[in-house]
Each structure stands twice: as structure tokens, then as C-alpha cells.
């Protein structure tokens, strides 16, 4: 006979107000196998736990049921207490009489009855529990960072400084991301390149960091501590080791029709190009769609001119395979396509996005920092900024969320204009100004109070080009005044959005995304940098709109989690994994198809069939990969696969007890 102890918690009045705990105790005493039952005000408190330990000891209990809150909350607490009292932690069961009972009922009689039923089910289950021992897995002491923007760079530097190896995989030819394109950063107006470039160089020089630029994550398998990742290194056609960065090739390349991605299409670049002056690594790539030699076999000028013999037209994509203990996803964001907003005439050259504006004010940009109209190179007199273009937009044209960064960068842009050219008129149309960061509101008010930027609360309805002007039709909702501004330039603060390939990456990583395709954190408040998949963390705007300070903070947080993980010599497994009864397994392998974590493969075994040796295929579970979801157990027709801690017998016993 088992000796089960039942502990009924009041949870203050949380449970006791709706459940007659004394009666639950009395009923529990009558349940088969129960040797002891008691109630206490707060079982999770130190006194409660100590009481449990003492009783286990005194009454020689071998199993425990705690009727309390959700196991999510305190299962670990009670398992630990039981372990300290000398019994295997998996011999503890929780009956959830709070979330699933007292919180959802008002009637005390009904509540009590249900609490008794739930307790009876837990007692029935625990009777069949067996001791489980978690396995151990090794940890590969190396991290992978997906994305080489400020988020990825910061995470990489922090992890590398802690002494672990880090690889950054970046899709474009250089690290730096969107921040590299910015001119100044709010709210301090320090030059973006000045604060970013040193970090880029640090990342490149750090002995613990390896950069894989112009590379993509191709396939990911494995599990926390042991991820196996295939990385595709796209053919660069330039030998990274030989190239000295002299730039003869990029200057002499005759194909100059491609739009520079870094300059937001405001400038052309060659077929062989370095994305921007401070690019890291400072080695060009050849764009296969643009290179005359790769398309027609002619030209080859760069190859002839290169003093270091670095051009290699026979370069091929290469796939490398690496092992990692942890992964940080820092893949960044994009801005929406403005073609759906016909009323704003984005196809007009003088209607630009904020990112294009950054390039136009940047001293290294296409106009060398002079603020000029793209259409005719003239200096504008009136500039209109429109915020929330596509943000907070519930229709299919936009994004329902607030893009978070536009209020601040628009204030920055208008201020930069007024600072350089006080004679230019600047208007900002806004719905609400949202500036909750440190020194943010002061910054935005400075645009209004010190620089005289005209803020108008109201949206622009339409823009009509008229001669050299852009007629901007808006409304000041506060005064009810309708306005038409004859602007020379219009800057649209377009909504941010998740990267277009986020879904692709999500599938590779087996993590989840929200309805807007941003990656989801494990818990919005308490686990903001973790994903639901162990060992995979999030940093920066791939999780949702974020400014630079927030991105950097989250990146360091993700790095801290990674360091904590890599610092462990062994990881403890969840022992509630599935196990195959090889004598029952028919080898149909239906379970392998069903398992969402690829945890089941097969193996060949030899069995003794009445003295005859025969070979047979059976399912084989990788305990490190199994999440214990139980999908396989219901798929298996002969019932050969069962989940430890949740066996068919245990579940049936619970159901029986509830139907009692």
C-alpha cells in the first residue's frame, strides 16, 4: 500500500473562500492510499514547506499530493521540498483547486465538491507515479547570433567578452544594419556612425567573434546546448583574404545601374561594390544580377585591374555546418511598402521616407549632407512631415500597432533641418505624440519651443503635385481649420514591419510569431528575451518595434541569458519524455511523422522470437529533443509509446477518479 500525504492549501482566501478546505481534508483521508491529510493557510510559504517535509519524515510518506494553485506556479517549489525530504520529486502531484476551481466558481458547495474530485484524481494518479531521474546533456560553449545589426553586435560583444565563442551570421555584405544608415540618433543627437563604427570594428577584431557576412542560416536542428546549424555563405566573388580594400574594382566597374541598398536607392552603385565606406568587412562583393562578366562572359575589368588578384569569378556558394549551445535571433525589421498609400504620392521623387531622409542629411550620403530635393537638387523652403503613415492602421493597408520610433525621429529630422537651415519651414502632422523615454519628451518639445517646428494635430488626407510644389491637404483637428500647404518636400514616417522572411526563419528555428510576424517572447513581462524554445533568445526589433537604447538593453539581456546557459557544464533534461516499449512497437513509425520536434527516429534491433533471432525496426526517442507533448502516444496504434509521468494508466486512473 502507498503512503500518500495530501496537503490542502487555503491560499489565504483565494481558495478558502470558495472551497471548504477542512471538508476536502476529511474526504482525502478516506481516499485509498492516503495516510495523512492536512490543510494550511499558505502551503508555498517556508512554514508550509517545512510542515510538508516534517510530515513526510514523521509518517514515512512515499508520495505527496498538494491541492493548491496551478502547477505552473509552484510545482517546482513542492518538488524541491519533497526532494529535500528524501523522496523523488516526480512522486509529487498538484491538484489545481485555485485557477481551475475556486477562481471560476462562486458556490462554495459546488466548489468544495469539485476540489474533492480534483484531489481524488491527483491521488489516483500519484499512486501510479514512478521515480524519474532527469538525464544530462552537454553544452557546446559557443553561441550563434542571427543578424549583424546593432542588436546582434551588442549581444555578440557581451557574450564574447564573457569568454565564449560567438558567430554572427549576417545576410548583407556588411554588419551594421539599419543603424549604420542613420545620420544622428535621438535624444542626444550623437552621430550614428560615430557610436556604431567602433562597435563594428570591435566585433570584427574580437578574438572570440567570427563574422559570416553575406551568409544565411539554412537549416537548424538539435536542441538547447547542442544546436546543429547549416550556414550558407553566398559567393562573394572576391577573396576575403587577398583583398586589401583598395577599391580599384568598385571605382572602375563599368556596370553602375544598380540602386544602392544602403543609400535607399538614392544613389547607384557598381556591380562590384562595398555597401558603405565603413563597411565591415571592408571587402567588396559582386552582384551576380549586375555583373557583365557573370551575365555575358565579357568585361572582367575588375579581375584585370585588381592588384591583389582577389577577384575570383569561379567562386561558389558554400554550406558550412557548426554546433552551437545557444542562439540569439537579432534579425531586425523593415518598413512597409508605401505603394498602397496612393494619396501620399510616394512615387513622386520629392515624397520620401524617413530612412531616405536619413541618407539625405548624412554627410556621407548621396547629397553629401546638403538638404536638397531629389527631383531637381534645389533647396526646399517648406518641408512637411507626416507621422503614422500606416501605423495604428487597422485596415489591410497598414499595421495596427504603433511603430514607436517615428515620433522621436520625426522630431529629430525637423530639428536637424531647422538647425542647419533656420529659413526652412517645417511642419509635422501627427495624431498623437508619444515620447515616453528618458529625455524624450524634452527632446520633442525642443523642436517646438526652441526650433519653431509647427506641429499640427491631424492627418494629411491627400497630396497633389502642382508644378514644382506638392499641395498637402491636411486638417488641424484642434482648431477645426483645414489647411493646404504648398510644400517642396514631404517626408513619410512609414510604419515598421517584421522582416519579410521572418516566417521562414521562424520555421527553421521552431519558434513562434505574433499576428504581425514579430517573434514572440516566452512571457511578455517576466521572460521578455526568451522564446518558448529553450536556448533561443530574442534581441531587438525582430520582437517588435524598438529604438536603439531599448534594442541595446535587450541585446545585453539576451547575452546574459546566453552566458548563463553556456556557463553550465551540463543541462538537466525534463524526464517526462516518451519511451518506447520495443516489444509492442510495430515499426510503423507513425510517431516520427507526428512529432513536432523531430525527436523520434528509428533503430534496428534483434529480438528473440521463440528461439529464433529476428531483426526488427522500432521507434527511437531522443530524450534531449522530446518536449513531452504526448502527441506520439496518441498516434501509436499498438500503444507502444508512452509518456513518462503521464502514462496512459495514470491518465485513465485520473479520469476514473473524477467519474467516481
Amino acid at each position: 500500500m502507498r503512503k500518500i500525504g495530501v496537503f490542502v492549501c487555503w491560499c489565504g482566501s483565494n481558495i478558502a473562500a470558495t472551497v471548504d478546505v477542512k471538508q476536502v481534508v476529511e474526504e482525502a483521508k478516506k481516499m485509498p492510499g492516503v495516510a495523512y491529510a492536512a490543510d494550511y493557510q499558505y502551503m508555498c510559504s517556508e512554514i508550509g514547506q517545512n510542515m510538508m517535509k516534517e510530515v513526510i519524515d514523521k509518517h514515512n510518506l512515499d508520495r505527496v499530493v498538494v491541492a493548491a494553485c496551478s502547477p505552473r506556479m509552484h510545482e517546482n517549489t513542492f518538488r524541491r521540498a519533497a526532494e529535500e525530504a528524501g523522496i523523488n520529486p516526480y512522486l509529487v502531484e498538484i491538484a489545481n483547486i485555485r485557477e481551475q476551481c475556486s477562481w471560476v466558481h462562486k458556490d462554495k458547495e459546488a466548489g468544495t465538491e469539485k476540489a474533492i474530485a480534483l484531489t481524488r484524481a491527483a491521488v489516483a494518479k500519484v499512486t501510479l507515479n514512478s521515480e524519474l531521474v532527469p538525464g544530462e546533456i552537454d553544452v557546446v560553449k559557443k553561441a550563434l547570433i542571427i543578424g549583424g545589426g546593432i542588436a546582434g553586435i551588442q549581444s555578440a560583444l557581451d557574450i564574447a567578452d564573457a569568454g565564449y565563442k560567438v558567430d554572427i551570421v549576417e545576410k548583407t555584405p556588411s554588419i551594421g544594419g539599419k543603424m549604420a544608415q542613420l545620420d544622428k540618433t535621438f535624444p542626444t543627437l550623437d552621430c550614428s556612425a560615430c557610436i556604431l563604427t567602433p562597435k563594428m570594428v570591435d566585433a570584427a577584431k574580437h578574438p572570440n567573434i567570427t563574422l559570416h557576412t553575406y551568409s544565411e542560416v539554412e537549416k537548424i536542428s538539435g536542441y538547447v546546448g547542442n544546436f546543429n546549424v547549416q550556414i550558407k555563405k553566398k559567393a562573394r566573388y572576391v577573396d576575403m583574404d587577398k583583398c586589401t580594400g583598395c577599391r580599384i574594382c568598385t571605382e572602375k566597374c563599368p556596370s553602375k545601374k544598380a540602386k544602392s541598398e544602403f543609400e535607399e536607392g538614392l544613389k547607384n552603385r557598381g556591380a562590384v561594390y562595398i555597401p558603405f565606406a565603413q563597411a565591415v568587412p571592408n571587402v567588396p562583393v559582386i552582384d551576380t544580377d549586375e555583373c557583365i562578366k557573370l551575365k555575358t562572359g565579357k568585361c572582367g575589368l575588375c579581375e584585370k585591374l585588381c592588384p591583389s588578384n582577389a577577384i575570383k569569378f569561379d567562386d561558389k556558394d558554400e554550406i558550412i555546418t557548426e554546433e552551437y549551445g545557444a542562439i540569439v535571433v537579432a534579425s531586425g525589421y523593415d518598413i512597409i511598402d508605401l505603394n498602397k498609400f496612393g494619396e501620399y504620392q510616394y512615387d513622386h521623387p520629392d515624397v520620401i521616407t524617413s530612412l531616405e531622409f536619413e541618407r539625405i542629411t548624412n554627410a556621407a550620403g548621396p547629397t553629401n549632407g546638403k538638404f536638397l530635393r531629389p527631383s531637381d537638387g534645389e533647396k526646399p523652403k517648406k518641408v512637411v512631415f507626416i507621422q503614422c503613415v500606416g501605423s495604428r492602421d487597422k485596415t489591410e493597408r497598414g499595421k495596427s500597432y504603433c511603430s514607436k520610433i517615428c515620433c522621436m525621429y520625426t522630431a529629430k529630422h525637423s530639428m536637424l533641418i531647422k538647425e542647419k537651415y533656420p529659413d526652412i519651414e517645417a511642419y509635422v502632422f501627427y495624431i498623437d505624440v508619444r515620447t515616453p523615454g528618458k529625455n524624450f519628451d524634452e527632446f520633442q518639445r525642443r523642436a517646438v519651443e526652441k526650433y519653431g517646428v509647427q506641429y499640427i494635430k491631424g492627418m494629411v488626407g491627400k497630396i497633389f503635385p502642382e508644378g514644382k510644389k506638392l499641395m498637402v491637404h491636411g486638417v488641424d483637428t484642434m482648431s477645426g481649420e483645414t489647411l493646404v500647404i504648398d510644400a517642396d518636400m514631404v517626408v513619410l514616417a512609414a510604419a515598421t514591419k517584421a522582416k519579410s522572411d521572418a516566417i521562414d526563419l521562424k520555421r527553421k528555428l521552431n519558434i513562434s510569431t505574433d499576428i504581425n510576424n514579430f517573434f514572440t517572447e516566452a512571457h511578455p513581462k517576466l521572460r521578455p528575451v526568451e522564446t518558448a524554445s529553450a536556448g533561443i533568445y530574442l534581441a531587438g526589433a525582430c520582437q517588435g518595434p524598438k529604438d536603439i537604447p531599448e534594442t541595446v538593453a535587450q541585446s545585453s539581456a539576451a547575452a546574459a541569458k546566453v552566458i548563463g546557459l553556456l556557463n553550465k557544464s551540463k543541462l538537466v533534461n525534463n524526464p517526462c519524455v516518451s519511451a518506447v516499449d520495443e516489444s509492442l512497437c510495430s515499426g510503423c513509425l507513425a510517431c516520427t511523422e507526428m512529432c513536432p520536434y523531430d525527436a523520434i527516429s528509428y533503430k534496428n534491433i534483434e529480438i528473440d522470437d521463440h528461439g529464433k533471432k529476428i531483426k526488427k525496426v522500432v521507434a527511437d526517442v531522443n530524450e534531449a529533443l522530446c518536449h513531452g507533448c504526448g502527441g506520439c502516444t496518441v498516434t501509436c496504434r499498438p500503444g507502444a509509446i508512452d509518456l513518462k509521468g503521464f502514462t496512459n494508466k495514470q491518465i485513465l486512473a485520473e479520469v476514473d477518479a473524477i467519474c467516481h
Partner: protein
Amino acid sequence: MTRTKIIPDKYEKDILQIKKISNEMINDCMQCGKCTAGCPAITEMDILPHQILRHLQLGQFDKVIQSKTIWSCASCFTCAARCPRGVDLAKLMEAIRLINLRQKGNDRLKVQNIGQLMTDQKMPQQAVVSALRKYSK
């Protein structure tokens, strides 16, 4: 100085009816004014389109029903097409007009009576069209 209560209870029924007829979410509007900024008829309006919506949010049915705006609205649906919150203001305008027609009792139009009504300069054409569509038998 007269003060009006911002949200008068007495119009609760009318506002409910507007919601029912139009099936639009009045509270989705965040008062961005984009409807007004793109509306081709504002010069003829006494209350701007976004203000009509604000009055509806505040339950001030009397203001909207008495406005010139509901008759100046050309039902061009520009506001509806551009509203970032997906509020169809043109539908709301139509609902207000409908209620007006019903309350005035002009809701049993016969085709043969239209000619006579059209000569009455005070009756906007729109009212005739609306009334016809909804109530002529």
C-alpha cells in the same frame, strides 16, 4: 454662459440606432482627421467629418442631426477608403440622414410623389434618393 453636458443620456437611443443602421464602430475612431483632410465637400460643411464622429462618440446626437454636413456629404466614400481605423464615416452619415427622414415622417415615399418633392427646394436630392431606396414600396 450655457454649459452642455458632454455625454447626454437622452440621446442614447439615437446613437444606438445609428450604430445599428450603420454597423460601424464609432469608438474605433482615434480622431486623426484624415477623413476631413481628404473630404471634397468640407467647404459646404458646418461641422467637419471628424467632428461629426467626435459628436457621435460624445452622444451629441442633436448636433449631428441638425448639421448641414449630413446633407453636404456627397457619399463619395473617400473618408471610408482612407480611414486608418477602418471606420466608414459615409455609412454613419447615411445612418444619420435616415434617422432624420424617419423622424420627420418622410419615410413612405411613392415614386409618383417624387416629382412634386423635387420642386420643393428645401428637400435635398440626397434625401429623396435615400428615402426611395429604403422606404418606397
